[in-house]
C-alpha cells in the first residue's frame, strides 16, 4: 500500500453512505439494500483501490 488504506476504508465507507443519502434526497434512488449497503461497500473497495494505487503526491 503506497497510500493511506485505513483512511481510504473509513472515508470510503462514509462516502458511500452519504452518496446513498444524497441520491435519496435528490430523488434519484430510494434507500434500498442496493444503495444503503451496496454503495458503502463500493466505497470501501474504492478506498482500498485508491490507497493501493496512490496516484497523487510525490513519486
Amino acid at each position: 500500500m503506497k497510500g493511506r488504506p485505513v483512511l481510504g476504508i473509513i472515508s470510503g465507507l462514509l462516502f458511500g453512505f452519504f452518496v446513498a443519502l444524497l441520491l435519496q434526497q435528490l430523488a434519484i434512488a430510494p434507500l434500498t439494500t442496493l444503495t444503503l449497503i451496496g454503495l458503502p461497500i463500493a466505497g470501501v473497495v474504492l478506498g482500498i483501490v485508491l490507497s493501493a494505487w496512490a496516484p497523487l503526491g510525490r513519486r
Partner: protein
Amino acid sequence: MTRHWKPLLFVSAFLALMWIPAIAFASVTGGCTGSVVIDGTTYGPANDTAANPIVVPIDKSGVVAAWEGSVPFANTNHHGSLGIVVGPWNIEIANWGGANPEDTRSANGNYNLDDFKADFPVAESLIPRGLYELSGTHEADGGSCTAHVMVKIEGSPLSSPIGIATVAGTIVTGLTLLGSAFRRRTS
C-alpha cells in the same frame, strides 16, 4: 498508466450493475388495484419506479389525496400493513385489519396532506425530502396482495437540515477519500 484503469473499470462495472435491479419493480401482485389523485394527477400501480413516482407536494397547503382501492377475493378477516423500505428493513408506518363480515371488497376516501404534516413528529421544514419506496401487504381469507410504489416528497434537499448535512457530508468524505490516494512519505 493503463494498468491503473483496471481497478477503476472493475469498480465502475460494479456500480453500473448495482443500478440495473433498481430500474424496475413488480408493483402489485395478487390482483389488487388502487389509485390516488394528488393535486390533479392520478397515480396507480405503474408509479413504481424512481423515474415515475407518486409526487407529494409537501410545501403546498390544503392538498387532498383522493384514494380508492379494491381486492378481487373474499376479504373477510383481513389485515395488512404499509412500510417504508430503508435498506434491508421495512419500517411500518400504518396497519389495518378487521373481521369484515360484510365482505366489503373496495374502499375509498380523502386524506388531507395537512393532517400528515401535523401528525409528523417533526416540523414541516424538517421532513426529509426525496424518494421513498413504500411496500405494503394485504391478506384476507380469500387471498393476499403485495405492492411496491415510489413516493417522491417534492422539494430541494437544501431546504431541510438533513439535506444540507447530507451534501456537506458527501463533500467532506469525498475529499477525505481523495486524501487516501496521496502517497505516504518514505524516509
